[in-house]
């Protein structure tokens, strides 16, 4: 079944708008390593302040690009796998709200009115439109799930007893996690920050605000990851020329992530005051539980690749590795997913280190942290988005990818870049180098009393790696622009475009992973149980509220004046 033309247009906008913005996001990525290594020693470059660029880098790359992709890809998977069109009105509403929110937020960032970074911790105060833009964006991203649910219910009625397609399970898991996670942050922004930035309230309970943010902030990473997991489980085996080793593993992983995504945000607050070690410890344990579905995923995907390689004639204990389409321009998407997996191996291991409670004392808020998440969101997630976007854009427009060879090279360049970058940042982090700091002015400046020559190698490796990553992005945009400029392929236009979805090899039927409801209920209960005590402590202790501060002045914002 072909997607309706209007829906195709919406999907193309949802992919191309954030990719265009991403040019700025990537530019500021490269600029940051320049500032941090002291190649640039200034507060701003080419009219853009370091912290303004850093805010843009975080918001565009980690929120705008990822969320738009999840919505667009989700719409593709749901309508294709359930063989039923989804609501055009719903998709339009979602698109308009998200675009409006993006424009408002981006405008405030680039006007220099919101240099508060993507965590927007109070009492640093941004312009009210920055917060309002975020709310519109998030509300817009809520809409699709509710338009998909009736389609899914109808499918279940028409297909009694049939298993829900695995891709649909993954997409629903993505948006259930998103729904759970974004409610507290919507509360934070709407009830705490927006009225405060408008001068209607005089202060904010900062600890409450940080806790609500991280209730959202960690499941956010699973929201980034889940669409990529859908790519891995549904497409990777087929691209490799085989089948998915186990259908159960996919369903179990998606359900486990619904359960475990939210009740572990406190591991970002191990260093915060005002929260008991018991509360931190409980969520620390829950965090490590996520390793179970992750390791099962690693096993299943490796097994699927082995299965495919042996079908292609691979032999021996390790010899089969040679039989995969690493450098085949025809299956250029394979390396996007494969390199992502290789990067994620290191992202996962370093994630376990971050989450390991007292070990966090060494790395919290140091350069170690961006080193880690550029191997997760900057690795598998980002490559999944690049590859998936190129696949869908060219697929819907019936255009060839020009050229497959260049498209195939991009993930390898990116992988090399992230490894060099992250190795540098890991080294720096272990030596105490702070994250998101304009190091070139002080710590990487021989004229400053804070100069730390022992961070030189770390920051310069970060700089080299960052430039290689920038090169990969440049190559990607060459492919994207050339593909968009190419004439539609007459042969492709005869058939409806479909995503390549794998068949399962072991098609186990385990009823425990076939129904969302118990998993969602358990997730809500676990959230309440693990967040009740810390939130009670924070609210009950009556920690005094803080007035707002603009990032460029140590004098508190006079809320009475900003009313006029």
């Amino acid at each position, binding site marked *: 079944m072909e997607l309706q033309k209007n829906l195709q247009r919406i999907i193309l906008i949802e992919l191309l708008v954030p990719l265009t913005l991403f040019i700025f996001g990537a530019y500021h990525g490269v600029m940051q390593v320049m500032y941090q290594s002291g190649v640039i020693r200034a507060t701003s470059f080419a009219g853009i302040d370091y912290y303004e660029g850093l805010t843009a880098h975080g918001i565009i790359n980690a929120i705008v690009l990822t969320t738009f992709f999840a919505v667009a890809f989700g719409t593709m998977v749901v309508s294709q796998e359930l063989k039923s069109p989804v609501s055009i009105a719903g998709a339009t509403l979602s698109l308009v709200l998200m675009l409006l929110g993006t424009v408002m937020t981006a405008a405030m960032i680039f006007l220099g009115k919101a240099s508060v970074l993507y965590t927007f911790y109070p009492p640093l105060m941004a312009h009210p439109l920055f917060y309002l833009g975020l709310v519109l964006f998030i509300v817009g991203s809520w809409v699709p799930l509710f338009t998909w649910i009736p389609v899914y219910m109808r499918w279940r009625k028409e297909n009694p007893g049939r298993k829900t397609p695995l891709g649909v399970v993954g997409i629903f898991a993505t948006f259930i996690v998103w729904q759970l996670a974004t409610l507290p942050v919507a509360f934070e922004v709407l009830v705490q920050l927006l009225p405060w930035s408008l001068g209607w309230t005089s202060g904010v309970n900062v600890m409450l605000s940080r806790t609500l943010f991280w209730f959202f902030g960690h499941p956010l990473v699973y929201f980034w990851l889940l669409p990529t997991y859908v790519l891995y489980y549904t497409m990777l085996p087929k691209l490799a020329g085989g089948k998915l080793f186990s259908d159960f593993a996919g369903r179990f992983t998606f359900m486990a992530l619904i359960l475990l995504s939210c009740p572990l945000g406190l591991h970002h607050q191990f260093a915060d005051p005002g929260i008991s070690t018991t509360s931190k410890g409980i969520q620390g344990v829950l965090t490590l539980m996520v390793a*179970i579905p992750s390791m099962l995923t690693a096993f299943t995907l490796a097994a699927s690749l082995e299965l495919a390689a042996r079908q292609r004639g691979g032999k021996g204990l390790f010899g089969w590795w040679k039989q995969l389409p690493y450098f085949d321009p025809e299956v250029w998407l394979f390396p996007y997913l494969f390199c992502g997996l290789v990067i994620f191996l290191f992202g996962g291991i370093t994630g376990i280190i971050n989450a390991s409670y007292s070990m966090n004392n060494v790395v919290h808020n140091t350069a170690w942290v961006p080193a880690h998440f550029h191997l997760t969101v900057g690795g598998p997630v980002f490559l999944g988005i690049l590859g998936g976007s190129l696949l869908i854009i060219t697929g819907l427009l019936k255009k060839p990818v020009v050229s497959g060879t260049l498209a195939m090279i991009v993930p390898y360049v990116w992988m090399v870049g992230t490894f060099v970058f992250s190795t540098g940042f890991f080294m720096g982090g272990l030596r105490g180098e702070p994250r998101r700091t304009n190091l070139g002015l002080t710590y990487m400046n021989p004229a400053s009393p804070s100069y730390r020559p022992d961070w030189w190698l770390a920051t310069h490796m970060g700089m080299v790696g960052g430039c290689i990553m920038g090169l990969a992005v440049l190559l990607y945009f060459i492919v994207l622009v050339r593909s968009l400029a190419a004439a539609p392929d007459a042969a492709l236009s005869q058939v409806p475009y479909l995503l390549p979805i794998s068949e399962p090899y072991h098609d186990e039927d385990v009823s425990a992973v076939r129904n969302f409801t118990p998993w969602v209920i358990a997730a809500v209960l676990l959230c309440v149980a693990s967040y009740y005590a810390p939130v009670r402590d924070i609210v009950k202790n009556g920690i005094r509220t803080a007035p707002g501060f603009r990032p460029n002045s140590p004098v508190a914002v006079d809320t009475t004046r900003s009313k006029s």
Partner: protein
Amino acid sequence: MAINVLERRALLGAIVFVALSLALISYATWGLGINVPTCIPLGTKPFEEASVTKHDGKNYEVHFVTRMWAFEPNVLRVPTGSTLDIYAVTKDVTHGLEIAGTNVNLMVVPGAVANGRVHFSKPGIYTIVCHEYCGKGHQTMSARIEVSDLINDYSVEGLPSSEGMKILDAKGCLACHTVNGNAGVGPTFKGAWGSTVHLTDGSTRTLDSAFFVEKVHNPTALSVNGYPPVMPPIPLTDDEIKQIEAYLEGLQN
């Protein structure tokens, strides 16, 4: 249909791995006594002033005050083998207090007191880094602890002991002019008194009482080379000017 046997083994392996990790973390926490910060003085009013108190032997209690964009105190010298109980509060936004190379890694959040403990068994210079973004001058916000075999008692710099520093703080001067030697939006105050100043009009002046008074009243006319001409005029009484001068004079390299 039953789950594939290899799949079951992978699942079991993952569970064993998690259990092993938890055992190691428990050992680090209770066996080695390395814990994360907890919620101390619940509901207690945060202290207002930075201070260093010597308890018995080489045990010190240090109260840090953090603000945009400095630590008070900003230099602390202690003998090797000292143990420091650290408490920190903030006067404005959230700051970080990380002593690089140690396990002290704290978020200093408005309204709460952060707490950590560090033992220095080796001499050296330990950088205190603000590792939480706190605004435009974030990168200038650092301090240090000097641990030495050669001293028997502590000494400290950067406590707002003088009236002059309190005035500079209250008037917002310290946002752009650091007292630790780092260049901020404007030049540092450290070692500035009596030094030669190069102005954008090509002339040079010595930072003395006459120049200081002229500068605070008409700042943009006397812009210093290499810094943006953004300083506003600062209303100061004669007495306040005297206090500040006395403080700056004492703030040598």
